[in-house]
């Protein structure tokens, strides 16, 4: 895949400190990176390393304590939220709580048209919805009239991706989209991300704790540990020649078949 060198998103010295009473927790500590057009990058780290906080800040759902996020050359503080969300969208970890359980799938997907510039009538919307569902390999007749709790986790997460096919953002932040899905469907979801990039030229930030998955899908990998990015580079480089001890530990912990699995000790 040929990459363009145009920067889609730039994060500069982003910091988030949560204050509760006298306690201060630095969730994200002076993080800087950039994402290019049509690039898939992975942010890898264990639970509590600050991955989701970064995702929420990039999605403009959470204010940063300091630092800046630049999208297409503009600070996101200067971009109207509605316009920003037309261009930057997200998928969250838990498909079961990403849906309002009182509405059927059709209504959930129709609602996503609200962020778009153009207005559609219901017929036009439904045509686009059906096309989007077909792109994520779901039979529209199977799900449109169903409530979220009648669907499986894998189906719901694919419907969330169908939402992205409808909105066609320039950047997708996918926060652990595969962690609650069984392993066979995981590869499926990752293929859909590649399809998104090919068809719509979407840049994708894939957040995961699974370095194996990250290697499988991404152009570049950022390793996060305790709120800091400790290692960054192309997927090959990070996996084959890790510099930081934390990265080395992560890679050694990936279980492989036909090999005894020994856990390394790390903090």
């Amino acid at each position, binding site marked *: 895949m040929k990459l363009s060198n145009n920067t889609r998103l730039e994060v500069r010295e982003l910091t988030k400190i949560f204050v509760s009473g006298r306690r201060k927790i630095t969730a994200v500590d002076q993080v800087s990176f950039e994402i290019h057009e049509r690039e898939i990058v992975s942010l890898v780290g264990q639970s509590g390393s600050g991955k989701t906080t970064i995702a929420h800040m990039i999605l403009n759902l959470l204010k940063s304590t300091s630092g800046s996020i630049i999208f297409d050359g503009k600070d996101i503080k200067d971009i109207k*939220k509605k316009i920003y969300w037309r261009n930057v969208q997200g998928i969250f970890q838990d498909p079961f709580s990403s849906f309002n359980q009182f509405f059927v799938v059709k209504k959930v997907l129709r609602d996503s048209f609200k962020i778009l510039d153009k207005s559609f009538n219901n017929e036009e919307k439904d045509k686009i919805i059906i096309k989007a569902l077909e792109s994520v390999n779901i039979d529209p007749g199977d799900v449109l009239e169903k409530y979220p709790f009648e669907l499986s986790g894998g189906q719901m997460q694919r419907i969330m991706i169908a939402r992205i096919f409808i909105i066609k953002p320039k950047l997708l932040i996918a926060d652990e989209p595969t962690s609650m899905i069984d392993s066979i469907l995981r590869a499926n979801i990752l293929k859909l991300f590649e399809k998104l990039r090919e068809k719509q030229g979407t840049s994708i930030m894939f957040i995961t704790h699974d370095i194996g998955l990250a290697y499988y899908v991404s152009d570049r990998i950022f390793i996060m540990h305790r709120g800091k990015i400790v290692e960054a580079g192309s997927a090959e480089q990070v996996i084959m020649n890790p510099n930081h001890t934390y990265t080395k530990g992560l890679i050694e912990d990936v279980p492989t078949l036909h090999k005894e699995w020994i856990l390394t000790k790390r903090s």
Partner: protein
Amino acid sequence: MKLLKTLLKSKKFIIGLCVFLLLLFGSLIFTTISSHDPAEMIGFLYEPPSKEHLLGTDNFGRDVLIELIYGMKTSIYVGLLSGIIATFIGTTIGTTAGYLGKTIDNILNSITNLFLVIPSFVILILLSVSLRSRSLTLLAMIIGITSWPWTARAVRAQTSSLKTREHVNMAKLNGEGYVEIVLKEILPYMLSYIFMVFVLQVASGILSEAGLSMLGLGPSNTISLGKMLSWALLYEAVRTGAWWAFIPPALTIAIITFSLLYMNTGMDEVFNPRLRS
């Protein structure tokens, strides 16, 4: 609709609902079709129950049974209206404080706490005394305005937990505003709870009205269950042994409140699976 269907599985809820609706529609239908004037004096003071007057007469020589039916209608009206007002104010303040957080939360929280620590019955008495004429609606409004704080608190707590859910974030990413998110993404999840609170508020509204009226601060120119008790107290029904003047209204208040509380218990068992045995 689904909510109603699950509720109808609870025996307690059905019993409570039936008793309440029976009393409500009984009094509504009787008062519209009957030609009796409840204030008409049809006998002497404290006549014991007889064939003509099933529950005897009161201190003014009025038929207690007819008074009781009219009083029931008044009490339920005050209860429902004050319940609606209190639930509405409580839910609005609770969701606003919980969803917006920060400064607005602090301000609304202090107001709520202020209302909580001031004994509401004292405010009720002071307000009622200061008003020259007290209509039923005004009384219901006063009761509603003084009894919302607990609802606001509980709703605020639930909202601040619900707003961190991912479907709320999704709605934000769809560009939905605060009002839309509260109405679509937060309120439906609390609907069962708000309904329960409403029922409790109706019950406490009826009790407050009875309490106020008993003290002689009830609505002017109407009969209510509390006012019947107040008359019985003033005209020494207890000392003269005229039990029919005070036991029926007291019992009716008890039955209405009981039916509402029983509905509430039934709902609690449906919505709170831990209570199911």
